[in-house]
């Protein structure tokens, strides 16, 4: 009766760990993408204002006659600039997903490479037993 190889369970464990780690890295990214496309609420509708005919709006009696009062002041312009949206969220940019993909692929590559490197440092795979032998024993067997 040959003794069980102590390396076999370790290799199975490392392969499973690699798969789990790859899933742990990949799944949050996939989930984040779903959030990016989720409908989080109605956009403010512009139909109401656009549907209104400007000619039907009655003249505002409170409108100041002095044109200088109607000009935007510099302070108001700065405040408006600050309140203006800076752009779409980072996760809606294609660069983010390219970077995330590269990171995910690199992580999977690192895990698989680490397993392969660990295997090589451990001596690699033991060669198969010659069927003409009465048995093969020792390291890795």
């Amino acid at each position, binding site marked *: 009766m040959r003794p069980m190889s102590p390396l076999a369970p370790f290799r199975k464990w490392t392969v499973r760990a690699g798969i789990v780690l790859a899933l742990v890295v990949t799944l949050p990214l996939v989930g984040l993408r779903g959030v990016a496309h989720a409908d989080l609420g109605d956009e403010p509708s512009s139909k109401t204002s656009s549907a209104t005919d400007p000619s039907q709006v009655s003249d505002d009696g409170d409108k100041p006659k002095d044109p200088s009062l109607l000009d935007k002041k510099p302070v108001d312009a700065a405040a408006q600039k600050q309140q203006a949206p800076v752009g779409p969220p980072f996760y809606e940019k294609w660069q983010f997903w390219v970077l995330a993909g590269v990171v995910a692929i690199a992580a999977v590559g690192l895990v698989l490479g680490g397993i392969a490197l660990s295997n090589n440092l451990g*001596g690699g795979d033991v*060669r198969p037993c*010659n069927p003409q*032998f009465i*048995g*093969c024993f*020792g*390291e*890795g067997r």
Partner: protein
Amino acid sequence: MRLLLPALVLGAVALGAAGCSEYHYYDIRVAYDGSMFNPNNISQVQRCHVFVTGADTADFYLEGNCTNGAATTNVGVFEFATFADSGTLNFMIRTYVGVEFDNCLFGTGTKAIPATAATTTADDPNSTADDLIVNMPSTPTNCI
């Protein structure tokens, strides 16, 4: 970038600590000394235990009860794999006609091989001089 250099150093240290192991294989031919054992009593062997000491340590049982199914003096070849590439590998074989008790010991043999960097070290197929030979007979007594 400040972390890159320490990471590389740590990686190199880890690689150095792990070492680069390489398998070495020793193909050992097992036989009985025909002048001490005949096919009739070889066929009584029921257990065949091999011990390895020295550069590596292991013990295992040869299948087929060391009779090769034909009770001939030539048992066959087994292969021993090790990472050892220096020192001496000492092989000892003990055969029993019953359970593995001293009173059932049938024969013993030893062989020493220098462990080398060679991938495969095999016995000369044309000579029995370097075989692992069971050449120390014992007389089993009250063995069930």
